[in-house]
C-alpha cells in the first residue's frame, strides 16, 4: 500500500513537471499579456518598461527556473489579471466547478444504474428501447446545444401555437407543449452557504439548488448515455456467465441474482471508466460553465487564455493534472475494495 502511494506521488510530480514545461513552452503562442493590462494609447516605451518589470524580457529558461524555484516552495506565481496568487484564485473558483461535477455525477449515478440494469434485464421491453434510442441522440448532441435548448425551454420559456387554439384539444396541446420558463439561466445565485475556507455552497438553499439544475443536467447529458450503455452492456455479459446461471438453477430470487451478484461484477469496469470520466468531465465544464456563466475554474481558465494570463494558465493545468492523478489513484483504491483479487502494486498474487 505504502509503495503504491509513493509510486503515485512520484508519478504526480512527474506529470506536473511535464505539464509546467509544456505550458511554459507554449506561452509565446498565447499572445502578449500586456495587451489586457494597458490601454491602446499607451506608448511603446511604457509597455517596454512594464514588460521589464514583469520579467517578460528574460529568456524562457531564466523565466522557467525562476518559476520552478518558487513552485517548489508552493508558490505558483501571481495572476496578472486578478493580481493575487494563482492558487488562491483557483481555490476560489474550484468549489463552483466541484459542485457542478458533484451535481452532474449524482444525476448520472441515480439515473444510469436503474436504467442500465433495466435495459439489460428486459432488453426487448419498449421502454428499454426508448431509453436506448434517447441515449444515442443524447450522446451525439454537443453540450453547447443541449445547454442553449435547455435555457430556451426552462429558463426563457416557449409558446407553442401549432394547434388550433379554438378547439379544446388544440388548446390543450398548445398548453402542454408551451413552457413558462423561470429557471435561472446564469451564475450561482446570491444565496450561497459558507462551508469552510473558500467553499461557498449552493446545495443548501433553494436559490442555490435552482441555479444548479440546468448546468448539472447539461453536463450530465454528455456522460449519462455513455454510462447507461456501458452498464447495460456489462450487465448483459455478466448475466450470461456461468455463476449467474448456476445461481438461477439453485433457485435464488431474481432480485438477489440481479442486484447482488450480477451488479457487483458489472460495476468493476464502470468504476474504472467513471474515474477517467470525472477527469473528462472537468474538461467539459469549460463549455458548460461558459454557457451558464458559472464562476468555476473552467470559465476562469478560458478567460485566462483570452487574456494571456500565463501564470494562471500554468497553475490551472498543473492543478488539473493533479486532479487526474488523484482521481485515478482513488479509483485504483476503490477497485481493490470491490475486487480483492486486484493487487495494487502489480506484485504476483
Amino acid at each position, binding site marked *: 500500500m505504502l509503495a503504491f502511494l509513493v509510486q503515485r506521488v512520484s508519478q504526480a510530480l512527474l506529470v506536473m513537471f511535464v505539464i509546467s514545461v509544456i505550458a511554459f513552452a507554449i506561452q509565446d503562442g498565447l499572445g502578449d499579456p500586456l495587451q489586457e493590462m494597458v490601454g491602446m*494609447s499607451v506608448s511603446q516605451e511604457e509597455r517596454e518598461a512594464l514588460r521589464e518589470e*514583469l520579467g517578460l524580457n528574460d529568456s524562457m529558461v531564466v523565466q522557467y527556473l525562476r518559476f520552478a524555484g518558487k513552485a517548489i516552495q508552493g508558490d505558483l506565481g501571481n495572476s496578472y489579471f486578478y493580481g493575487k496568487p494563482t492558487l488562491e484564485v483557483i481555490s476560489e473558483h474550484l468549489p463552483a466547478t466541484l459542485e457542478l461535477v458533484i451535481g452532474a455525477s449524482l444525476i448520472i449515478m441515480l439515473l444510469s444504474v436503474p436504467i442500465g440494469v433495466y435495459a439489460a434485464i428486459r432488453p426487448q421491453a419498449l421502454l428499454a428501447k426508448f431509453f436506448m434510442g434517447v441515449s444515442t441522440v443524447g450522446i451525439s448532441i454537443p453540450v453547447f446545444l443541449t445547454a442553449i435548448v435547455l435555457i430556451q425551454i426552462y429558463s426563457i420559456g416557449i409558446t407553442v401555437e401549432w394547434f388550433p387554439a379554438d378547439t379544446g384539444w388544440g388548446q390543450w396541446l398548445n398548453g402542454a407543449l408551451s413552457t413558462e420558463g423561470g429557471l435561472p439561466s446564469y451564475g450561482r445565485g446570491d444565496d450561497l452557504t459558507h462551508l469552510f475556507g473558500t467553499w461557498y455552497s449552493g446545495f443548501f438553499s433553494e436559490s442555490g439548488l435552482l441555479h444548479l439544475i440546468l448546468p448539472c443536467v447539461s453536463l450530465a447529458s454528455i456522460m449519462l448515455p455513455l454510462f447507461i450503455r456501458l452498464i447495460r452492456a456489462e450487465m448483459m455479459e455478466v448475466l450470461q456467465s456461468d455463476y449467474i446461471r448456476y445461481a438461477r438453477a439453485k433457485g435464488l430470487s431474481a432480485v438477489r441474482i440481479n442486484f447482488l451478484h450480477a451488479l457487483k461484477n458489472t460495476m468493476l469496469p464502470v468504476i474504472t471508466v467513471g474515474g477517467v470520466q470525472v477527469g473528462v468531465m472537468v474538461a467539459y465544464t469549460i463549455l458548460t460553465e461558459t454557457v451558464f*456563466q458559472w464562476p468555476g475554474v473552467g470559465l*476562469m481558465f478560458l478567460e485566462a487564455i*483570452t487574456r494571456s494570463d500565463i501564470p494562471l494558465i500554468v497553475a490551472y493545468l498543473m492543478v488539473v493534472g493533479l486532479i487526474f492523478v488523484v482521481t485515478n489513484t482513488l479509483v485504483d483504491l476503490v477497485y481493490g475494495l470491490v475486487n480483492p483479487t486486484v493487487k495494487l502494486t502489480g506484485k504476483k498474487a
Partner: protein
Amino acid sequence: MKKLLAALVGSMALATAPVALSAEATKELKMAYDADPVTLDIHEQLSGGILQLSHMTFDPLVRWTKDLGFEARLAESWERVDDKTMRFKLREGVKFHSGNELTTKDVKFTYDRLKESQDFKAIFKPFSGINIIDDYTFELVTSEPFPLLLNTATYIFPMDSEFYSGETADGKKKDAILKHGNSFASDNLSGTGPYVVTSRQQGVRMEFERFADYWDEESPGNVKKIVLTPIKENNTRVSALLSGGVDFIAPVPPTDLDRIKRDKDSELVTMSGTRIILFHMNQERVEAFKNPKVRQAIAYAINQEGIAAKIMKGFATPAAQLSPAGYQGHNESLKPRYDVEKARQLMKEAGYEDGFTITMMAPNNRYVNDDKIAQAAAAMLARINIKVDLKTLPKAQYWPEYDDRSADMMLIGWHADTEDSANFYEFLTFCTDADSGAGQYNAGNYCNPEIDALVEKANVETDLDKRAAMLQDVEKRLYDDAAFVPLHWQDLAWASKKNVKIEPILNVMNFPYLGDLVVE
C-alpha cells in the same frame, strides 16, 4: 457657446427633475455587461469598463451630454482666463463616500496622479500645471493653446485625497498605481459618485449601493442597489435578460437584435457609434501601395454598405472617413465610393491590371464580426485581381503582430479617447515616430507631413469653427489620397426590461449614467 449649451442642458435637467426630487431610491437593478471592471483604481487602465465604473462611483468635473456638449458636474462653472488657462469653480458641499469634503486639494491630487498614470499621462500631456486659487477655485494651464481642454476635463474624476494618501498597514503607499499585483486603490474606493461599491468578487459579481449623501439631489435616479454580473457569452447574456434574470444588458450582439425586438417585455436601444473600423495598407511592405491609384482602387473595390448591411446586419454605419458625425472633423461631403468598374480602371492605370498577392491579418474576437469582415473584404479584392492571403487571430495574439506590422493589410478599430477627430489622425495616419509616439497604430506607414502639420495647427486653434474647417480639410485630403480603407462605425446597443428607462441615460461614449437611471 459650449458653456451656454451646458447651462441650457443644466436648466433642462432642472425643469424635468422636480417630480423626481422627492423620489426615494428604492429599486434594485440587476445588470450584465460582457466584463466587469478589472480594478477599482480608475487611473490604472484607460478602458471603457473603467470609465463606466468611474461614472458610477465618481463624478467628473464636466461630462458629455447626449449630443456631445458639456454638462457641469463637480465643476460648477468655468471660464477662459487666457489662451492657455481655464478657471474652474468647484461645487461646494460635495461629500466623498468616506465623508470627507471635496475641495481643490482633491482636484490637485487627482491631476498629479493622472500625470503619473501610464494610461492617462498621454491625454494630459498638453497640460503644464494646475493653480489652486482657493478651496473652490482652480486653474488648469496648458503649455500651448488647447482647444480640447474641456474634452480632457471629462477624464478628471476627483479622488478623495485624504482617503488615498498615506500608507497601508503593511507599509505600501496608498496612492500607488500598480498594473499588476494589488494596490490599495485597486481594492478600495472613495469617490463622490452616486454609487458605493459594497462587495466585489472579481469576474463573478459586483454590488453597488446608492450613496446616501450624494450631492446631486436633482438626479432623478431611483435605484438603490445595483448588482453587476459579467456575462461574457453573448447568448447567455441575452438569455439572462429574456428569462428575467437581469434587467439591463450591454452590449447586445447583432445576431440577437431581432430576438429582443420581438420580446414584448424588453426594450432595445441602438445608436450609431464612434468606433471606426478600417484597414491599413502597408506601403513599406507592398510597393504597389505607394501608388495612390492602387490605394484608391482598393477603396473603390470595398463595398462598405454591403458589409454594413449583410455582415453587420445593419448594425453599423458605413464610413468614408475617420470622424463620425458630431465630431469636428466630420466632413459631410465624403461618401463611400463603391464602384468595381472604377476600381479596375484605376488598377489598369496604375499598371497592375493583372493584380498581385498580399497578406491580410485581422483579429477574430476583438470587434463585432471582425473575422467575417476581413473575409468579405478579401473576396471583394479578388474582383480587382488582388489575391489575399488572410489570417485571423485571437486578439491576444493579434496585437503583437499588429505592433510588428506583420501583414500587408491589417484591420483595426479605433475610438478617440478625447472624442475628437485629431486623436484619430495622431494615432492612425501620422508619420510614424517612435520617440513622440505619433502614428503608433499607423500600420500603413502612410506618411504625409503636410497633413500632419495641418493637424498640429488645428490642435492649437481655439476658435472651434476655424478648427473644424481645418480638420474637415484633413479628412478630405486623407480621403482623396486613400490613406486607408474605412469600413464603418460600429453601432452600439443596449437592452433592458420595459420598466427600466435606459434611453435617457445612454450616450455614444457608452458610459451609461446609471446615477440618473429611473426604474418604474
